[in-house]
């Protein structure tokens, strides 16, 4: 399967976004109301709060103690934990959706994490920065140094992001482990979905990040 076969959905208008991040709104829109969701790497809990306003039963895991305590102080059901080591403690089919937002590239074993997401949840929503984005390519090609952007400002020696990939790489991984892509979106620098139905190489070049709704494919 390639991204070309996946229909991009209508993006959300910028004026709808209010206090919430555009990529969070996109993720929230992918979740059916009334479902049970686990947000892995939930940060300060902004996405979980957005989901709660939509009647979704949200839980979170966060690595940093400060992040966890801020979430708990907001009344969210969040526990301190590590995507690489703690997902194994969750039973099969415990959630309708498991969300991994901007965290896949920071895990030690992205493939194992992805497999765990789709074991714990019937569906997974994964977003990650696209290393095939034109500005990344340009920095490496012309600048000759590891790319840094507004959203990824850390230098190579102190970044937590140890497993960068491109949208193309991610699609290939999904194919390899028989994961079905139900929806795919590429977002621009401002978190807005690229509206048009575009060939995958355009997404891989102009998408600053990719957002994928995944489910268990056949042959697994």
């Amino acid at each position: 399967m390639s991204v070309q076969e996946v229909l991009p959905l209508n993006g959300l208008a910028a004026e709808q976004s209010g206090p919430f991040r555009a990529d969070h709104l996109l993720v929230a829109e992918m979740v059916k109301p009334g479902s049970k969701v686990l947000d892995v790497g939930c940060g300060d809990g902004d996405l979980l709060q957005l989901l709660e306003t939509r009647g979704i039963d949200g839980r979170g895991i966060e690595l940093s103690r400060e992040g966890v305590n801020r979430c708990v102080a907001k009344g969210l059901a969040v526990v301190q934990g590590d995507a690489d080591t703690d997902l194994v403690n969750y039973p099969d089919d415990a959630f309708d959706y498991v969300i991994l937002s901007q965290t896949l590239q920071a895990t030690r074993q992205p493939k194992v994490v992805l497999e765990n997401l789709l074991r714990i949840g019937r569906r997974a929503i994964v977003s990650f920065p696209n290393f095939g984005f034109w500005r990344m390519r340009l920095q490496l090609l012309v600048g000759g140094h590891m790319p840094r952007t507004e959203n990824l400002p850390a230098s190579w020696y102190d970044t937590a992001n140890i497993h960068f990939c491109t949208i193309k790489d991610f699609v290939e991984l999904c194919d390899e482990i028989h994961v079905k892509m139900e929806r795919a979106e590429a977002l621009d620098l401002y978190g807005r979905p690229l509206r048009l139905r575009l060939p995958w190489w355009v997404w891989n070049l102009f998408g600053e990040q990719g957002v994928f709704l995944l489910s268990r494919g056949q042959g697994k």
Partner: protein
Amino acid sequence: MVGVKSVPSPAISADDRSHEVDHPSSEVAQFGADQPLRLDCGIDLTPFQIAYKTYGELNADRSNAVLICHALTGDQHVANVHPVTGKSGWWDTLVGPGRPLDPSRYFIICSNVIGGCMGSTGPASINPATGKVWGLDFPVITIPDMVRAQAMLIDRLGIDTLFAVVGGSMGGMQVLQWTAAYPKRVYSALAIACSTRHSAQNIAFHELGRQAVMADPDWHNGAYADQGIHPHRGLAVARMAAHITYLSDAALHRKFGRRMQDRELPTFSFDADFQVESYLRYQGSSFVERFDANSYLYLTRAMDYFDIAGDHGGVLAKAFAGIETRFCVVSFTSDWLFPTSESRALVHALNASSARVSFAEIETDRGHDAFLLDVPEFFDISRAFLQSAGKARGLTGKTTNNQDH
């Protein structure tokens, strides 16, 4: 000659303490022969009584009741002046106007555990069969026994479901036992600095304390009450050892270091030269003024026996299968008595049961005792957890948004 000064004798008379044992100054619920307490050891305890305090008012639909479970040496006087010591309530940082547990919003109940010595039936109480103090004739009790007795009290108060059960340390063990034994009766559970089972190290410390009590010649095989004495030296040593486990190396260093007590130079004796020694002796001697030695033996034993997984075929998650209670688990970084790893094991089991759980580890150097101290981050988390549970429960009535910091 080497100067020797042992722990001073108690300043409060034994009369003050023993009066509270049978005739507490708080409310008391009496349970007669028709309502025995079935103990894990197989004995039916009857008659028995539970001493308790309440704060605030029960609302019309009886949905705002909060049960606070006290720790090993705590009692029902959670937020009022203590009748024996005259000190303020042991958890008045958490309970009170503008606090996370505000009596204007919740009906707060705290009872002395069965086996205690502040008015609930225990080894210091009079055995009605003999007219003498129970002593070691009192049956060995467990954490589930304490909770069973609390459930009878809650029934007596006409409450079906508790909005929250809250406790730290041994109180946290009771919180977890409540959720395992009566999941439908607990809407939310705040379990602080505790564990689902007592560790080997903790059992070892308790055994040390018990041996100190039993080595005191005034203990008289537990029958000291008949002689009109109290093994205060042994109990003080037990308390001193236990008190060290409630603190941390960093906290002791910060508080005392190697500083001397009212002197410049060592006295070359076994007097309390160091401030830390003086502090510990004070902790020991003030404790024996308010606590019964046999009660200490029974309650430490109850904690030792606690093992929720053991009661559920060795699988902790089974204890919480299908539970709908909202959990908040809190641990402290410098707590080595109930370390974060114990809380994490609980959280993993709750996750495996798909329970709704929040878990926060709070950074502090104050050790296990941190749950009783002024730690703002802990109060923020408790307040937010209770407020969000209250919202989900549809708790109306007076809303207090007073921030006490």
